């Protein structure tokens, strides 16, 4: 199948071999699970359980609220011991509302195996909307790390005609191998999940895009799709950021998503391979999203592994299972080294979007102080979006956001290719994320000002209206009074 080229990109050393050779192992059930209520983009879930309550595995702990949200289920059976604050897997180390579950080690399910609303059935005999609703009820979000609720993305197919579903098996981040192992070991389940999604979207074909550095996954997915003519495996070159949605669409279809539009507008939807696997489990087994595959790797980890981990497990439990640190880590990350986030410490839970726990050694991060920019242009050559980081960064530093926007700040995907190649070690992504944050603040402030102005205007209008009404009423009363008085005068007096 023809593959197209996207602009720029970089070739970081893959570092995948240590964990790519290891089959997915089940992590032993920890004694406590810390399940955050916000593991997705959108509104946090609302708790349905109380402290002290016993829950079954798969029972709904918190239901979704709002248009964009996802429910959270109990990853194992046990007792709720706390609903409160716990450190979020975020660099800030701030707290997020979290349900703490003390496991009983029995992994007991409810009467209907999982939660009642999700009995296994044949999805192809069900209405598309019902399948999508079940995917939403299973709490499935984008498992590649974006954590956008899957059901909301599937609903886009209702409004627009989707012709192609792209399955993202790119896994372009160095060190990460969870998708690779998933495609190798559970290809048939993944293919089933893809067919279910095709049914929901009523799309013509699914293209499974895999980078050429994963030959075993390619072979396994090819074998699994053999009986399905509308599924194709597309081998794409290993180039970062291949796994970025826009770049993947361009590589596979040759079409760019027009500025300001979504992929669904050109009839394409992209889902991660981990997401389709979760869909398979939710629909065929009636099992909500309770666990995920996580790669534990990096030069500071003694034994890199791929683990199937219950959501809410602490990062330190994963590291311990992998033999701990072989040397003090210079940086502990959730996600890959190109876009992953620094963890404040290892007592944070695994969430739905955690594809990796990477502990990098000092030698691997090559940390150097920032130098002046020498305008070498490597960042411009590396940018997959056609931006000029060399021009944007100083403008943001000087607070000139409008000018940075003209250079395309709004189109930056924060992939980090520019910082990766920068010989001066300038934290370009930091500038861009800061700039985007400032823009969001500004939009919010503008929205508020406008809302205030609108309300003030409405109040003025209302007061005027009321004053007019009062004046009118007063005039009417006056007139009535006058006529009454006149009538009184004219009417003959009745003497008693």
């Amino acid at each position: 199948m023809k593959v197209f080229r996207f602009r720029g990109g970089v070739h970081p050393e893959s570092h995948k071999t240590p964990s790519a050779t290891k089959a997915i192992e089940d992590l032993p059930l920890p004694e406590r699970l810390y399940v955050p209520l916000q593991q997705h983009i959108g509104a946090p879930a609302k708790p349905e359980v109380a402290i002290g309550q016993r829950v079954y595995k798969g029972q709904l702990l918190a239901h979704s609220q709002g248009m964009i949200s996802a429910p959270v289920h109990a990853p194992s059976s046990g007792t709720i011991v706390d609903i409160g604050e716990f450190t979020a897997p975020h660099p800030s180390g701030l707290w997020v509302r979290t349900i703490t579950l003390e496991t009983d080690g029995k992994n007991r399910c409810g009467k209907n195996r999982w939660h009642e609303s999700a009995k296994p059935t044949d999805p192809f005999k069900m209405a598309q909307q019902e399948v999508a609703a079940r995917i939403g009820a299973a709490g499935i979000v984008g498992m590649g790390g974006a954590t956008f609720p899957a059901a909301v993305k599937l609903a886009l197919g209702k409004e627009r005609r989707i012709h192609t579903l792209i399955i993202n098996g790119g896994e372009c981040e160095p060190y990460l191998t969870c998708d690779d192992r998933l495609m190798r070991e559970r290809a048939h389940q993944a293919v089933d999940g893809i067919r279910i999604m095709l049914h929901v979207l009523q799309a013509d074909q699914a293209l499974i895009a895999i980078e050429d550095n994963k030959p075993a996954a390619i072979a396994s997915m090819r074998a699994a799709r053999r009986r399905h003519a509308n599924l194709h495996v597309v081998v794409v070159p290993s180039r970062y950021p291949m796994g970025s949605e826009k770049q993947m669409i361009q590589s596979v279809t040759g079409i760019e998503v027009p500025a300001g539009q979504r992929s669904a507008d050109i009839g394409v939807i992209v889902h991660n391979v981990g997401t389709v696997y979760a869909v398979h489990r939710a629909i065929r087994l009636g099992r909500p999203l309770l666990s995920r595959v996580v790669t534990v790797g990096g030069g500071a980890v003694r034994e890199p592994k791929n683990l199937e981990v219950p959501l809410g497990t602490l990062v330190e439990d994963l590291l311990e299972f992998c033999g701990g640190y072989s040397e003090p880590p210079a940086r502990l990350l959730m996600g890959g080294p190109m876009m992953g986030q620094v963890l404040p410490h290892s007592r944070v839970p695994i969430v739905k979007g955690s594809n990796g726990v990477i502990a990098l050694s000092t030698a691997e991060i090559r940390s150097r102080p920032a130098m002046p920019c020498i305008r070498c242009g490597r960042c411009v050559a590396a940018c997959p979006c056609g931006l000029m980081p060399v021009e944007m960064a100083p403008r943001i530093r000087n607070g000139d956001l409008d000018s940075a926007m003209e250079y395309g700040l709004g189109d930056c995907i924060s992939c980090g290719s520019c910082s990766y190649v920068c010989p001066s070690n300038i934290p370009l992504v930091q500038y861009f994320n800061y700039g985007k944050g400032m823009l969001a603040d500004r939009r919010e402030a503008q929205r508020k000002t406008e809302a205030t102005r609108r309300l003030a205007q409405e109040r003025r209008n209302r007061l005027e209206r009321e004053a007019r009404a009062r004046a009118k009423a007063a005039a009417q009363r006056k007139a009535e009074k006058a006529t009454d008085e006149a009538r009184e005068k004219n009417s003959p007096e009745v003497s008693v």
Partner: protein
Amino acid sequence: MQQPLPRVEIRTSPHIRSAPSVDEIMRHVVYALIPICAYAVYAFGLSTLVLIITVLLACLATERFFNWMADKPSTLRDYSATITGLLLALTLPPGLPLWMGAVAGFIAIALGKVLFGGLGCNVFNPALVGRAFIQAAFPVAMTTWTPPFLAARFAEFVPSSLALPFMEPAPLGPWAQSAVVDAWSGATPLALQKFEQVGTNTMDLVAGMTAGSAGETSGVLILICGAYLALRRMMDWRLPAGMLLGAFLTAGAFYLVDADKYPDPVFTLFSGGLMLGAVFMASDMVASPVTPSGIWLYAGLMGFLTVIIRIFGGVPEGVMYAILLGNAASPLIEAVTQPRIYGARKPRRKP
């Protein structure tokens, strides 16, 4: 449940970096310049050795002085001033009075670099700013050439080298005549070609057996050193390639029109400072555009200008002015060659 407040260490992605760093790049450029300096000393002797050292020290001292003035830590360790010093020395006539070399070094750093804000901010190549300044200030000394491979080159200085500060050196003619066996015309191959229509053996040009600035004579050595940098990914190969291609095509066009009047393109490539300028000065990243298509346009323009100045200008050599003009055009080229943003229908337009 209370958690102790963690020690926050904010680091944004990416958490890995590719080689090389700025000082690694600069250091490798210095490595690549060392063989060229060595050959210059071998060809022109003691005077050139002392000239290189003088110019280098002048540049380093100026940089350090302005660091001290600005109360900033020393920037000598980024090797950028070292490169400026070596490059500047290599573009000077071997017998240039040492005090003029020191002036050139001071001007290169002070006017060419520090005035604009230091590393990464210079609009023009600092070494060429220094050279242009003394070319205008001391036109005679800057066009007085010494013959290469003199027998006594390691034993004695060229007399003009040791001229006292602020003094014009005595004319070199009589000394040169006595030092060389054959008649010494005192001209470079470019001047011979331009003013006297005398050709030079191509092999002599390629190997560096001719007269000229200290470091510009051996084209093949410069190419080898440049190839080393390009292969180590320390230099953007498109810059020298584009400039040489631009010069080759322009010279080729003239040569096709009138082969008797205009020099052939191979002579153009290997004569004068084109090779040194293309490989080590046009490739200066700071003053060149950052856009991929702009790089080709910029480099090609400099090659074109070199040939035009050589053919139609009053002086035989045009590399220095071509590169300085290219530097000046760089922001404009950058503005009109911006890449197209993903998903945008048209390339963006600068207001």
